């Protein structure tokens, strides 16, 4: 049976093409001068440059973390180019007509049409290509509601007060090695501000595309939901198929002020490398949100790509009665390695958190859940529920669970459930006996396993995610 499933799992990476656009790319290498040039390319104010430089100095003093259950060659940070942008973006196209059609075609091929008439109604998109944002759609409509949705490079200039106040407030510069690096060299990403009492009229989404070779992508996203507001945001990611590894080191900060709610969903499909583990993206990401009184942050992620993933979207439940949620599907196959999970830091009274993690391992991959639930002394009456399920496909893969629980308040309640199961011979036989081919059988069983997470995704994306898993699992069965 294992052989059957392995065949069913052999997939093609559909987003693996390279776009033919002329780019302006920095030579590989990293020093203060490179950071000055990045800042210069973006016409940043002095304070931003200073902030970057101080982060860089901190980074130089830090050590690359080695605690994660992943194994990859040491990254040569001097061999990476830290900035690449299509030449056509240099004179800042003012409308879609002025954007290089090849860029628009790229997104269309990825299923993200940027032409207004073809766009999915109700979803505004910020399209980031290598180090720059190409287009942000539906901005006028959002502005009417007072919502700011723009590239962070633009927000730094147009909304400096907001950026200054919140950037680095959730993920401090020194938080960790990759976060510090990101602070020094980040290029683009999205900025969102939802005003008081406003329900964002559309889904917001950012689509990250790496195109250029030997470049790293350092995404920076900052979302601020002011008191009583509500926003749902989704990010997607893909990259060409290449034999070299590429680094994606992102920082995402969410701020949910009193009574606000942020729903953040990720469909991560970076190039995973080939069967033998050649190539693929190193996805080293720091995502964290802070919840003030009665606020809620919900992270949902579907992780199918990247050769190495290191990612723990977390919530600091600072305000009383605030709520944090983490719903995750992580699928690894081939030689992929994922070490992912969450941190729920309960500070306020009656704070609640829910963690549902579904790990699917196939091939020779390694899939680890790493989660921390901390109840601080002030977290009176706080509750956490964690459910952590692993599904193994074949016997060469690994699933690991590393739950850390720290409770410093006796009234806090923490529940943890974990299961490990296999796609069983019996299940496969039942499906095939009813006429389903093995591919369909595996994808159906896997989809069923992920159901609790998929139902948390915005509807359009739940379908996408289901399909993505299906593509991930699809292959030719001889």
């Amino acid at each position, binding site marked *: 049976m294992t052989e059957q499933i392995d065949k069913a799992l052999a997939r093609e990476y559909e987003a693996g093409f390279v776009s033919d656009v002329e780019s302006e790319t920095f030579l590989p290498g990293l020093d203060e001068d490179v950071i000055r040039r990045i800042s210069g390319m973006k016409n940043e104010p002095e304070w931003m440059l200073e902030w970057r430089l101080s982060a860089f100095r901190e980074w130089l003093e830090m050590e690359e973390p080695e605690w994660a259950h992943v194994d990859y060659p040491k990254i040569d940070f001097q061999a990476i180019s830290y900035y690449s942008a299509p030449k056509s973006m240099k004179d800042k196209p003012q409308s879609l007509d002025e954007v290089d059609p090849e860029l628009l075609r790229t997104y269309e091929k990825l299923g993200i049409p940027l032409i207004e008439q073809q766009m999915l109604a109700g979803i505004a998109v910020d399209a980031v290509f290598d180090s720059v944002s190409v287009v942000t759609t539906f901005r006028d409509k959002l502005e009417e509601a007072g919502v700011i949705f723009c590239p962070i490079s633009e927000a730094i200039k147009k909304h400096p007060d907001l950026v200054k106040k919140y950037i680095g407030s959730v993920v401090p510069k020194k938080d960790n090695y990759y976060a510090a690096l990101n602070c020094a060299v980040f290029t683009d990403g999205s900025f969102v501000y939802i005003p008081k009492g406003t329900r964002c009229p559309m889904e917001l989404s950012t689509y990250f595309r790496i195109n250029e070779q030997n470049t790293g992508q350092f995404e920076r996203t900052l979302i601020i939901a002011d008191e009583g507001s509500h926003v749902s945001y989704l990010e997607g990611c893909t990259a060409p198929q290449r034999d070299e590894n590429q680094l994606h080191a992102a920082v995402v900060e969410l701020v949910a002020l009193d009574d606000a709610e942020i729903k953040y969903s990720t469909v991560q499909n970076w190039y995973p490398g080939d069967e033998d583990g050649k190539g693929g993206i190193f996805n080293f990401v720091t995502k964290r949100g802070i919840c003030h009184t009665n606020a809620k942050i919900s992270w949902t992620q579907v992780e199918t790509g990247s050769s190495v993933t290191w990612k723990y979207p977390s919530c600091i439940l600072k305000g009383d009665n605030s709520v944090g949620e983490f719903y995750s599907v992580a699928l690894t196959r081939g030689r992929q390695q994922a070490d992912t999970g969450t941190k729920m830091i309960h500070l306020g009274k009656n704070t609640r958190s829910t963690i549902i993690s579904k790990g699917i391992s196939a091939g020779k991959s390694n899939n680890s859940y790493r989660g921390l639930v901390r109840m601080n002394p002030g977290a009176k009456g706080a509750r956490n529920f964690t459910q952590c399920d692993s599904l193994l496909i074949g016997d060469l893969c690994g699933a690991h669970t590393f739950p850390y629980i720290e409770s410093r308040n006796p009234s806090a309640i923490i529940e943890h459930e974990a299961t490990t199961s296999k796609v069983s011979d019996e299940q496969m036989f039942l499906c095939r006996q009813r*006429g389903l*081919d093995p591919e369909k059988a595996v994808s159906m069983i896997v989809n069923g*396993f992920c159901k609790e997470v998929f139902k948390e995704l915005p509807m359009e994306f739940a379908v996408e995610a289901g399909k993505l898993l299906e593509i991930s699992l699809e292959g030719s069965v001889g």
Partner: protein
Amino acid sequence: MSNTNSLLTIKDLYASVEDKQIIKGLNLDIKPGEVHAIMGPNGAGKSTMGYVLSGREGYTVDSGSVTLGGQDLLDMETEDRARAGLFLAFQYPVEIPGVSNLEFLKASVDAQREARGEEAITSAEFLKEAKIACKQVDLPVSFLKRGVNEGFSGGEKKRNELMQMLLLKPKLCILDETDSGLDIDALQVVAEGVNSQRSADRSFIVVTHYQRLLDYIKPDFVHVLSGGKIVKSGDASLALELEAQGYAWLQNAPAEDELEG
């Protein structure tokens, strides 16, 4: 003895699981529309027979032949056998968590339709049919939304198997102890379900330990499977005899075909 108008012909079948031969010289011929009951002691190889016929991985045929509607069944993939009209109701139905019954059934029906070159059934049409099938096996419609066999009681699982049969409309139905673990009412429901499907072009192999079921589903033939082969065949009255006397008197009896031969 092979008959051109047979639906299923099993000839001198020997089959093993994990290097242990379980089926040892099985012969069986079933014509369209017939109902064959198979009885026999625990461990005789009844379930194994069903698995071998449906092509379960790990079950290897050592020798012999099986044809379904004239086609060489042993040469086909598991799913192709199903698409050719072979259906197995499992003795121990397995759960598929998170996959709704409705989704599973529609995918199955669509896969089989596609193999016949037919279009996928519309969701609305299928839902209508599925609701009728639910009613026929006396399961609440809410079972369509639940995960396949997820948390079903023993009897509910068996009824669910039958519901799948009703929707897939197979040519040959192998019911492996579908009556075990059913209460009296459920037994009638299952029997009625089967009887409603009896037709000139659909045949049944009903594996059971209880003569009681055969009061409701009148078989054309009753066979005793023991030690991997059929050791006695007869009409419905054989079941009554077995009920009264058990299997001991047959254990050492020569096989039917040996007698005939």
